[in-house]
């Protein structure tokens, strides 16, 4: 009756994000390695937003139902910030 659950893709924002070691804009490896392009890079909603030139960014895995669990993002991430699970 209920549809199939999507894979869980989680990014650890203490590693990559507004308070992490890396500004995702300077990496973007996961965005590029994912064939179905399930990630979105965006201004961080938890920080004061400068509408003209936002300074704080993070990545959210958005199109989860399209993730095929190929694990390429997990392997490519230099910080080990991404986990993919059922």
């Amino acid at each position, binding site marked *: 009756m209920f*549809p199939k659950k999507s894979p869980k893709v989680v990014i650890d924002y203490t590693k990559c994000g507004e308070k992490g070691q890396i500004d995702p804009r300077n990496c*973007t490896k996961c965005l590029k390695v994912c064939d179905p392009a399930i990630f979105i890079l*965006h201004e961080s909603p938890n920080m004061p*937003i400068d509408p003209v030139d936002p300074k704080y960014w993070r990545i*959210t895995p*958005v199109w989860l139902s*399209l993730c095929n669990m190929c694990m390429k993002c997990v392997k490519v991430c230099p910080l080990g910030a991404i986990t993919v699970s059922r």
Partner: protein
Amino acid sequence: MCDWCMKHGAGGKWYMNAKNYSNELAEAINAREYLQEQWKAFEMVYIRRIMGITSIDLGYKLQLPIIGRLLRWSAERMIHSEGKHRNPVRADGHFGQVIPLEEAKIILGNLAAEPIIENYCMCRWMQRGIKEACCINFGLLSGVIEKLPRFIPKDTKYRLDRDEAIAHIEEHNKKGYVATVWFQPVPYINAICSCENPECGGLRLRNDFGLHTVYKGEYVAEVDPDRCQACGMCVTKCQFGVLRLVQSLKRVIVDINKCFGCGVCRHACKYDAIRLVPRENYPALRGVY
């Protein structure tokens, strides 16, 4: 002609009606305010809660019984909204249609309101972290985007005259990017994009989730079996998996139900074997956009 041509085409196609490009229309519908709101944090469009729901894992949510149908219904209503109280941060009334290069050139040469700019593509930035200047915007929208440095190309000329805009759209189209024209918000037209699938957010919602953010074009591709040399080059260009090289026939076949009529496959054919014909020529495709 689609339902939007009936409403805003003045007897023709909606995107060929000069009125839809005018500054007067933009003023009348308060487009500047809408566009400023929409663009200042555009990257948040899938992250925000809209009526309590974000786009995160939309594929799952759309399949839920009852809620899924309600969600689809309200999303379609938002996309095609002409209401007075449209919400810019959820992009109400922002949708487009695929057009062939010839029509994009007519629009940029004659209909688009100046100034014309070419800025970084929002979708490639959000979904791939790539900054590529290939979005051509015009009219009131140019002034709005010019105030947002992250979308303005550095070191290159981003204000274009009509001839430059035509040359650029031709270059993008020949590379294989699909030309699309956009209401923002309906019926005001202010953008011609050069999109890729699945990087384009509009094509993503259309192809992966069946939402009508982008209509298919007024045309479909037709291959002349006598001219086709079965070289397969066109197959590499199509972004929608419409063309297939059938070795036993020694020609390419077209899945017209999937064809968006963008015409980029034509640029790859050295034998002039592909042309675009009106969608209406096929009874099965009439009114199907």
